[in-house]
Structures are given as C-alpha cells and as structure tokens.
C-alpha cells in the first residue's frame, strides 16, 4: 500500500483539488482506494469563507476512515467495518467501505499516531493507494506517508514572488540530505559529537526559542563535530544558536530529526537564512528522515473579502506568471496548476505502481 499526503501552505491552496485529480486517475487505473483527511474535507461550503469547496465523490469499494457523525453527511452510502481507537470532534473514526457511490465528508484522525493506526487498518483491508487530504498548513501527521504533494498559491500570499520564494524554501526543506544514524540515538536529548567521535547528551530535544538556544549554547563549551537536534526546531532559534556558538559549531554537522520537524515551525523562508548562514560557516545540515516531496501544485485563486458585501468571493493572480515564477525556482520536482489541461501523469509523478493492482 502507498499513502500520499496532500498538504498545503495555507487554506484554499488546492489540496483537495489535487487529491481529487489523483483519485480520478487512480480510479481509472483500477486501484483499490482509501481516503482519509487530517482535517474536515468534502463539505459543500467553506466554514470560514462561505465559498463552495470541491467535494469528494467516491466510487463503490473505496475504503474511508472518517468520523461517526459525518458518515451520513454525503450522498454515498457507507458500510461501517470497524471503529478505530482514534477520536475526533465528530466522534470516533470509523473504517468504512463505500457501498453506494456518492459524495463524502472526511473527518479523519487529526494527528500522526491516529493516522498511523488508520493506515495500518487500511493496509489490512488490501488498499493499494491511500490519499490523505490535509488541512490548512498542517504537515506533521503526513510524516508517516510515503510521499507528499504540496499545494500552494495565491491563498498563501497574493504576491507571486513571495509564493515562489516560499515554495522554493519548502522544497529545500524536503530535499535536505538524509544522514542515517550510526546507532541507536536517544530522541529525547541533544547529542553532541566531539572530534574523536565520542557522543554526549544534553537535556532537551527541541529548539524553539532564543532562550532555549542560549541555554544550549552555554552547554556547548568546546568545538564539536556534530550536534543532533532530534525534536522540533524553529529557524530563528537555530540561527541564534549558530551565532551564539559560531566557534563551537563551525565546520560541524547539524542534524535535525526530520524535515517535517523543520517545516512545522515558522515560515520556511526563514530556514533559508539558517542554511545560508550555516553554509558560510561550513556547517553541514542533515535530517535523519524526510518524506519525498513528489510535486508542487499551484492555485492562482484566493478568497477575497470585500467590506462592501461583507462576504468572500474568489479572485485570482496571473496563473501563467505564477507557474513561471515557481517553476523557475523549483527544477527538481514537477510544478503544475491542477486545472491546466491536459492533466499530467500524476500516478507516475507520485511513483504509484499500477501494474498488478489488486482487483
């Protein structure tokens, strides 16, 4: 089974549109499908803007993990199979099969552990491909997916250069080199490696604030060949640490637990400042694990609030200029506007095998 997460840089960037495009191609390829969401998807009207949203229409045989209270919110008839040990605001998550095709509302497990459990249950049911729809700019649960599609666009920012810079920064995060650990390292401590290869640990695992950076800096008394930060990090805290411990860290390896640990904090563009400063000090940055970012989708539309009407309506930036700007900054993965025709081979981009698909 392959799971693909559909994450966004903001609300209304086109995550569900991208997921629906993959769903259509996967359905034509005869794949057994699973659907879930880490947020709330498939509703007719956006709960904040009041604008229409793309809806899920699932074929018969699709498996879904969605909350009990929304099982009958769409026109699809869902046959419950089992209740999972994960709860949401709409009741427990239910693994169900689409008995009669129709529209669906997806409210699935909202965190990593819950999603992990749901994917295991879907795998046990023989699903070939699970689409995990995201929510706003949330990424962390997708750490357990096999691949990621990132959606961005004017809903993130209406300035095309900003969209492009940010997309480039996100792409950098997901393409940081991966350094496999030499042995079993504790995940609840900072690990220092000295020039002789000897390791020592310092209490703490996340670096989120300048105060924490100063405290860690004080603990690094001598030059090190490596510093491991297994938990989550904020870029300004890391920058502060580097500036505070320049002589100790110069030339060292700075290893983070996961690319997603970096992406979950602050604006990805701030990480570029960290990478540039690190590069100037010959500090090499690695992650222990990442998730393959397979492609970036673009959405030129954004909800615009007008005071006069007191309502939102869709507006858009120049779609061609947007595509050119982002494609110009990202060359190692495909960049596409999902509404452009013809649609690309998304299954190929996502590395989803179609031969030998289970019937």
């Amino acid at each position: 089974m392959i799971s693909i997460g559909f994450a966004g840089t903001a609300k209304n960037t086109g995550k569900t549109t991208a997921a629906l495009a993959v769903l259509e191609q996967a359905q034509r390829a005869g794949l057994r499908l699973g659907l879930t969401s880490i947020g709330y998807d498939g509703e007719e009207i956006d709960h904040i803007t009041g604008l229409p949203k793309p809806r899920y229409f699932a074929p018969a045989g699709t498996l879904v993990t969605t909350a009990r209270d929304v099982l009958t919110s769409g026109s699809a008839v869902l046959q419950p199979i089992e209740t999972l040990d994960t709860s949401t605001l709409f009741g427990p998550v239910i693994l169900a099969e689409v008995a009669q095709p129709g529209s669906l509302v997806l409210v699935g497990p909202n965190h990593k552990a819950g999603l992990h459990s749901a994917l295991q249950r879907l795998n046990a049911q023989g699903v070939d491909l699970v689409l995990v729809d995201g929510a706003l700019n949330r990424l962390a649960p997708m750490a357990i997916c096999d691949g990621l599609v990132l959606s961005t666009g004017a809903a993130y920012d209406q300035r095309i250069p900003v969209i492009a810079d940010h997309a480039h920064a996100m792409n950098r995060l997901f393409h940081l080199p991966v350094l496999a650990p030499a042995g079993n390292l504790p995940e609840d401590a900072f690990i220092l490696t000295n020039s002789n290869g000897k390791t020592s640990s310092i209490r703490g695992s996340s670096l989120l604030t300048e105060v924490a950076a100063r405290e860690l800096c004080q603990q690094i008394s001598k030059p090190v060949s490596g510093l491991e930060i297994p938990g989550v990090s904020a870029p300004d805290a890391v920058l502060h640490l580097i500036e505070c411990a320049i002589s100790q860290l110069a030339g060292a390896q700075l290893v983070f637990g996961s690319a997603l640990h970096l992406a979950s904090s602050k604006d990805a563009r701030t990480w570029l400042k960290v990478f540039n400063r690190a590069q100037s000090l010959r500090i090499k940055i690695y992650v222990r694990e990442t998730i393959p970012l397979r492609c970036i989708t673009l959405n030129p539309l954004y909800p615009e609030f007008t005071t006069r009407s007191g309502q939102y309506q869709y507006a858009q930036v120049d779609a061609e200029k947007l595509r050119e700007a982002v494609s110009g900054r990202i060359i190692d993965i495909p960049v596409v506007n999902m509404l452009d025709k013809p649609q690309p081979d998304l299954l190929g981009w996502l590395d989803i095998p179609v031969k030998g698909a289970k019937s």
Partner: protein
Amino acid sequence: MKTVILAPLDPVHDNAVKLLQRKLTEAGYGAIALPPGVTAEEVIERALTEKPAAILVSRTLGYKVAETLSGLVDLADAAGLRPHTRLGVGGMAVTREIGAELGFDGVFNGDLNMPAVIAFIENRPIEMATADTAPARIKPDLTAGYSYRFIDPLIEGLLDQITSQLLDWVKAKSSPGTKRAQLREAMLAEPETSTEKSRLQEQYLQQCDLEIQSFYREGSLPDGVRWLDQGELERLPGLTAALPQSLSVRHVGERPLIFTQYGTGCPVMDAVHIKVAEAWGADGLLHFDPSWGAQREGLLDGLLSHEHDGTILTLDNLRLIRSAIAPHLLWNVRGHRGLNTPETQVLAQAAGADLLKINIPYGATGGATDPARLAVDGVYSLQLAARYGLPFDIPGNDELSGVPPYKTFAGLLVMTMLGLKLGARPIPKPLMCYSPYMMVEGCMEDNFIDMNTAKLRVWSEIIDAPIWPGEPVGFMTHTPDRVQSAMTTAAHVALAKNLGAAAVTMASSDEAYSKGPISAQARVDTLRAARELLRFMGSAGFSPTPAADRLQVQLHAGIRQQLQLIAKRGDFVAAIYEGLLGSPEDGLHPGRTGRGTVQE
C-alpha cells in the same frame, strides 16, 4: 496534579485565560497562563517541559488567524505531544467544523462551561445533555412554605364575615355554567363513542348559546376560526420536542419563577412561542383565551385555530399545547371571567394544567360578567380547584380601569379567604403597573419603585401567602419601542425579585403594540433583558424612598376600610354591583354578560 497550559494567542486580550486559570486552579489543576501574544513555539516549548494534560488556546477566529492556530497544532504533533496532551480551542466563531479542520480535540464557545472543560481535560466524553439524559427538573410548588396565616386579625375577621355571607348566598344556586361543568366532567369520564356520552352532550348543548349549538350540530365555525389540518399536527411534534436544557433568567436564588403569557390564537403558533419562552428561561406559561369565547354559553370542541388574539379553549387545543410544554414548566389556564369559568377549570385540569385563575370581583367588573353569575360560577370553580388540588391565582388587573389598589386588594383578599375556606390554595396577584389611579393621584411621579414596593410589602403585613405580581408586570409603562419595553419589564421583574415575589408574569417587548400578534423575537427580548438586569442586581436590591412606607400605611388602611364597607353591606354580590370593589368613578361597571341566568 494535572497541568493545563492556557495560551491566549490573541496579542492583547487574555481575560478568558485569566478567568479559566482561576477556575481550573480552584478545581485542583496546575493552570499555567501564558502571556498574551505568546507564539506557538513558546507554547510548545513550555509544554515539552510541563507535559500538560491539555493545552487550551483562546483566539477570535478570522481568516488568516486559522493558519496561526493550525500551526500550533502542527507543531504540537511534530513535537510528539499529541498522544498525551489534548488540544482545545475557544473563541468567537470557532465551530466544531473549524475545530476539526484545525486539528483540535475540543472546541469551546459561548459562556464558560467548566464541567465541559474539565471533562475535556480528563478525556471523558462531554456528555451532551439530551432530553433523556438531562436530570429531571422538578416542577416547583408556588405555594410551598407558606402558612396562609393571617397576620392582621381585623382583616381576617372582616374576610371571614364577607366570605361566610357569600358562601351562604351561593348555596343551592346554580347556573348554566355550573351545569355544563358537571356535564363536561361526566362526559370526560365516558368513552368517546358511548351512547351515554352522546346523551350527556345533548344535555350540554341545552345549556349552550345557539351559536355554540350550531357548531356542534351543523359544524359551523365562528368568524375567523378554522380547523387545524392533519399535516400541521404531524409536523408539529418534530419542532416541539423536549429541550435538553434552557437558559435561566435568574442569576441568584430560585425565585421568582418567570411566567410568560401566550395566546396567539393558533395552538401551533402558541406551541412555537412556548418553546421559545422555554428555551430562553420561562418557568411557567399562562394561556389566554379570546374574550368572545367567555361571552358565550358553552365551549367549542376540537383543534381550532383563530386568527385574532386568544387561543380558543377546547380540550383538544389545550392538550396539543400541553404536549409542547416541558414537564417541568408550570401551566396556568385563564378562566376568571365569562360564562364558562367552571367548565374552563374542568378542561384545564383534564388537559394537565397546574394552576387555575379565578377572580370574582374582577371578572364581574372588568371582565364584564354579571356579578351574581360569576359569584355562583366562581365559588363552584374554587370548589373544583380544591378538589383537583390545584392552586389558583387571583389577577388584580382591575386597577387598569382606574380602581385604586386598596379596592383591588380588598377583592384579592376576599378571593384568598374564599379559596382557603373551600380548601383551595390561593395566590394573590397585585399588579405592578402605572395605572390611571397612580397617574391621577401622582403616586408614581418620582419613581416606579415606591408604590410597587408598598403594594407588594403590604401583603406581608396581612397574610403569609405567595405573591405573584402580574399580569404582566409594568403594565402601562410599556411603549412600542423594543428597548424601552424590554427595560421596563426587566426593571419590574428585578424589583419583584427584590421584594420576595414567588413568581412574576412578564410581557414580551410587543406588549404595547396593538396592530398585530406578538412576535417570537419580542419574547426573547424581554427574557434576555430580565436575565441581564437580574445578573446586574445579583443579591443587591432597590432602595425605596420614605414615600414607600407612607404609601404602604395608606394602602393597608385603605384595604381595611374597604373591607369594612363590604362587610357592613352584608351582601358581597350587591357590594360588587354597587361599586364597592370598583365603581363607575373608578372606571368600572358591573358586568352584564350572564345577567339573570343564576338559578335557585
């Protein structure tokens, strides 16, 4: 001790957080309140140290604020907190759907609900009260705790004299009204299709006006009356199902009970208005029937809608309305005047009413019913009330014609003693109003507090009985302006509470609007206004001026004097005819409806 982190992501306001911190600390949690404008990174860093059971975030939702909240959720997940730390969000416009999209485990909006917050922290299901699971609310007894002991022996003696004469006078007298009540009771005891019931009904019709007979024999409906159709009846229960809980008007204490009146003319619309009143905190309801119904001998039957004020008194209408009234609400059916007073009590009891309404002097003057007729019917009705075990209230709305309060109160006291002698439980209803008498005499030029205080306090000098100002309070102080109307009602309710009233009847903000029926929003407005003012007052009170004491002394003296006059007359019915309980000078005339119908 479990720890909870409170994070106001709002850059300025953290009052909700401070309040929650205090409440959680009192409940035994280690509540850590972070400063306003704290970043998601700061919250998570603190959480990694404190390992809290929950992080509660407050923020007013706006379009781009959503990303800030979801960023916190994401960081918490990436930091590995989520298996052990629940994430809750509270603030304006945060719905369950938005909470799910943001990734939160709990959403809180509206007023602070500590049981829900604690259930969330403890990862217990927040039990949404349903009509089946909510604790059963007990219907209060308005008369409980009152001894009905007379404190003024002079007044007690006079009332004893007056009522003894009246009871003697009505002995062996009957009227078409008392006969119909007896027949109605007998009919109710018979199966629907029995020949005995048909026979009794024929006897019943012999006691009815031609218009009523024509309804039963030919099916002709009075003007403006129609049958309810089956479709309406089938769809109504879905709307009027029991509510799990409702707002409370009171802030401190269990009294006064809040009553509102209904009588749109249509029992379906009444049911909706009743549910509105119930949801916004009413404790009881009063049924108002159309005045034309009281002027005919005999009552109609079936489910009837009426396009003018007042909902027709039929057993089926009353039962339909009763089905919409929550079991814990008190229900009063008005029958204090007209030709159908005794039968109204029979129907009210059969339909499940909790309170009856009977006042001979008021019904025989302002209610336009012949005094002799209403004396016979009224005493019979009191006997029914006693037999049914239902309290009855005694409205004092004759003041609205210009009757001075000491005369009205004399009448209320006569009815009180009468009820007690017959074994019933009376609830006098002094009217808090700006009556013509008050205007002419200048009793309320400075304020509305002193006179109303005197009117309510005087009762505690006379008898230990529940006092229920109505109907409604603030009568003649209302204007069609919604805000003014709601305010004056709220002020009168607050004053009634301060003066120890057992219950109070309040109007909608449409009280002074006469060109159409009362609207649902008007009902909500006054209930909300009353709630707000009772919250404002809390356990604090009003300070009457020394005039209140003077007015109270005058009132007490006036009541004694009037009762002495009535006792001296030696004939209560004649006293009504002759204006001792309200004269033409006061603006009242003895009623004529039913004159000459008393039978020996």
